[in-house]
């Protein structure tokens, strides 16, 4: 068992390399997780932006946090799909009958989700810079933003893991993505919530995405994040905790 522990990170890097190849060889994945959010950003800034009153002088600055979450949310169906195929095709069984740590296969997917989302987030930010995004935020604020985005990614990844590990069909595995895609749309991502009718506004203001967006917006503009940051953290950590327990249960049942 000693040797297995020493090899854990090597095994994990093999798993990461494998799923990253899956991503880079799937045009569909790349389009959905980077091209689509960038297109959305272009659309909102250059077509709809003129008509949207946010109170901010630079709409790209307002929009960027929401676009980042859209990019992450878009990747979730793929994580679920990759897990599902590994279970379905017997790849996990092959790994589990080998002398490698049992959890390496699953953590490989989690790590892949973190790394691939980090890449698409950086790409989206670079495009935003070209479009005039500017931020006075310092290194600490950027680190805090990276941390919150990582937590958000983890929360969605573990939800995706539950779906991918317990689904009976491919459609079931990726269905989890649809409600998640909606969350950024009904939030303060594109327009301030005060313009929305009562019940929609109530939902928008009390769902996790809005608090995360408001936190990132505050950090980017060097405003104090206030209590939003704690609400955002509580959502992320709470979801990670619950989803992790259910995902692990599904993993043990499957494997």
């Amino acid at each position, binding site marked *: 068992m000693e040797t297995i522990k020493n090899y854990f990170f090597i095994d994990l890097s093999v798993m990461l390399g494998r799923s990253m190849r899956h991503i880079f060889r799937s045009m569909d994945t790349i389009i959905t997780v980077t091209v689509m959010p960038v297109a959305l950003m272009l659309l909102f800034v250059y077509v709809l932006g003129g008509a949207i009153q946010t109170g901010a002088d630079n709409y790209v600055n307002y929009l960027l946090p929401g676009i980042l979450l859209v990019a992450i949310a878009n990747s979730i169906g793929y994580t679920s799909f990759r897990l599902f195929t590994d279970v379905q095709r017997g790849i996990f069984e*092959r790994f589990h009958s080998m*002398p490698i740590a049992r959890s390496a296969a699953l953590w490989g997917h989690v790590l892949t989700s973190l790394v691939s989302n980090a890449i698409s987030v950086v790409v989206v930010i670079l495009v935003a810079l070209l479009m005039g995004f500017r931020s006075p935020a310092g290194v600490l604020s950027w680190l805090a933003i990276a941390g919150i985005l990582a937590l958000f990614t983890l929360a969605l990844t573990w939800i995706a893991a539950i779906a991918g590990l317990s689904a009976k069909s491919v459609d079931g595995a990726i269905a989890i993505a649809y409600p998640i895609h909606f969350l950024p749309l009904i939030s303060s991502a594109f327009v301030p919530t005060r313009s929305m009718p009562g019940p929609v506004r109530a939902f928008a203001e009390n769902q996790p995405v809005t608090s995360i967006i408001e936190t990132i917006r505050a950090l980017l503009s060097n405003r104090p994040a206030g209590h939003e940051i704690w609400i955002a953290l509580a959502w992320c950590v709470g979801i990670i905790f619950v989803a992790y327990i259910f995902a692990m249960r599904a993993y043990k049942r499957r494997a």
Partner: protein
Amino acid sequence: MENKAIRVKGLKKSYKELDVLKGVDFEVEQGSIFALLGSNGAGKTTIVKILTTLLKQDSGSVIVNGFDVSLNPGNVRQSISLTGQFAAVDEILTGRENLVMIARLRHLKDPRQVADDLLNRFDLTAAADRAVSTYSGGMRRRLDIAMSLVGKPLLIFLDEPTSGLDPEVRIEFWQIVRELADGGTTVFLTTQYLDEAEQLADRIAILHEGRIIVSGTLSDLKKLFPATKVEYIEKQPTLEEIFLAIVGKKEQK
């Protein structure tokens, strides 16, 4: 000196209501080819999964290469490899990448060399750098088996390795299994094809209704069959007839 690669005693397993294994006993000699026969749903895959540490038994003892599968699963995994019922290959990677990946997970010195050798041996060199999704069923199965041989495991499990292969590829596959056994590897294979067991196995066990109803060499099994009938042509019983005869007898009781 331990000369049994596998020892199974009183193995029981049920899925909820369904009693699949009701007390299975058998032993496999090191370096031999052992065939487990059974019809669909007999529990062959269930036995393979328990022996390869993928599934826990309800009761009974299972010793693989000297280690108990429930107490020391890690040690068991060091010396075995599994080729499951359905080819477990990565469709998006190339054949070479699949082999290199397994070699790296087995922590071998020179993964690329290991991959090259196996590609060569399994006649996959020409297709080595193509995505596996473009492979034919036979190529996929060959790659699957090649992946199981990475790191030269002492004992390999093949769960219905030839289902879905055309007759030519099957014969090719039998050759591979014989070579493995000649090299000292123990082979545990399950099959529904009685001629496959007849062709390959040193010992054969028949799993029926949760128990091994008969086991032995091919000639042992042939002795169990009622004396050959003399008709126009004298015909040796095939294993299929033995199987049906035994199953029929049991069911009459």
